[in-house]
């Protein structure tokens, strides 16, 4: 499972371009700074109140310099500290170019569920609602299926919704999907998987833009 998480995070890191300001959720997304090509000129922002954090420090981690999950990070030139209210001011007002969040379920029209499994697991909503509300480009990372094999990319979320129509891209260990105007389309099949695998493990309806591209060539 560690490998799967690394793989998803590594693929997600390719979405990050020079000059972006990116927020990373806890869980799989928090692996990204250590996997990102170090030449990428990006500023990571976090809800606790930092803009411009870098990879895990090689030595002397500082309990007072961490990401939203509390794990040690470093700070880059041009970074700053501020209070959490300001951190969310940036988020709600649309200043974050991209947010990469973990997900429990994503529906085919881009609804995100990522904060509660009623009666079972209550991580809590954290900053997810605001990130989904304010961020132009929201990417959801998750294992393609639950441990029992149930699909997590669904027609309609059965778990309580974090925010509606907000996810623009889904990255799993099997595939990459794009959501445009509430339409899900398959963009990429990850090495080791087939279209059949994806069809078998995805409940949501999706168009296959890979086939479309082939057809257009």
């Amino acid at each position, binding site marked *: 499972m560690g490998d799967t998480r690394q793989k998803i995070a590594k693929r997600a890191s390719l979405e990050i371009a020079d000059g972006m300001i990116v927020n990373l959720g806890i869980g799989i997304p928090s692996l990204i700074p250590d996997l990102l090509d170090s030449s990428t000129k990006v500023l990571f922002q976090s809800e606790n109140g930092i803009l411009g954090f870098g990879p895990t420090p090689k030595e002397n981690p500082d309990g*007072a310099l961490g990401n*939203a999950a509390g794990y040690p990070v470093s700070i880059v030139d041009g970074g700053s500290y501020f*209070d959490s*209210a300001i951190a969310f001011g940036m988020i709600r007002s649309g200043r974050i170019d991209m947010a990469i969040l973990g997900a429990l379920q994503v529906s085919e029209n881009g609804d995100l569920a990522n904060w509660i499994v009623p009666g079972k*697991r209550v991580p809590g*909503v*954290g900053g997810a609602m*605001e990130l989904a509300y304010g961020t132009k480009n929201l990417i959801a990372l998750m294992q393609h299926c639950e441990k029992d094999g149930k699909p997590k990319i669904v027609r309609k979320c059965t778990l309580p919704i974090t925010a509606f129509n907000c996810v623009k891209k889904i990255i799993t260990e099997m595939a990459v999907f794009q959501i445009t105007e509430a339409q899900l389309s398959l963009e990429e099949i990850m090495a080791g998987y087939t279209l059949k695998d994806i069809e078998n493990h995805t409940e949501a309806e999706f168009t296959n833009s890979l086939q479309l591209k082939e057809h257009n060539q």
Partner: protein
Amino acid sequence: MDIFNKVVDYEVVKKLFFDEMKLLYSGFGGVGTPPSLIDCLIESGVKEVNLIGNDAGFPWIGIGKFIVLKRAKSLIASHIGSNPIAGELMHEGKLKVEFSPQGILNERIRAGGVGLNGILTDVGKGTILAENKTVVKIDNKEFLFESPLTGDVGIVHAAKADTFGNLTFNKTARNNNPIIAMAGKTTIVEADEIVAMGQLDPEEVVVPGIYVNYLVPSGGINWKWIWEIPDKRSQKEHPLK
């Protein structure tokens, strides 16, 4: 009280806590939560406390140390995932938890601190978190009313303080401390270093001392962070035991 010297000892602070008080506590996953004030809170013996803060800490970190003692009656927070015992208490009906989106929670506390009567937002509209909220219609658009939050007591962790209570913070341990500091009827600050008035540059002050009522010197962080623990799976165990 001498407003120019607010330094007291923990015995004085202990008497400021009371049963059923609304307690605002600072910190984000325990980072920025005042460690000695948490111990002081525990030693004070208060119970039925109504907590307001970002999260439930970890069972052995920050406010989590108090929550696991079952002396909190309610909690308004954005996240309790790092403290499974808080989740259990919630499911058992022993801890009433109200979830607030994290940034909105910060704004509600700030609104309390700066004397506003509430804020309107469309964050969370249509979700289960909106279910019991008042909806306000402005120009035919519907917004959620979010009420201001204040505490009877607020506890804060600063890096430096002067004796008037001007505060600076340490990196991401700043997080919600400046907001919490403004919203307590009585604000108690634990500072890593306490200096004389005039020793802080007026430009570097993050929280002006007007918001601070009592100052205590910090005993320092007395817990292990999750990343310092080899086996992170045993979150329910107190790793120092």
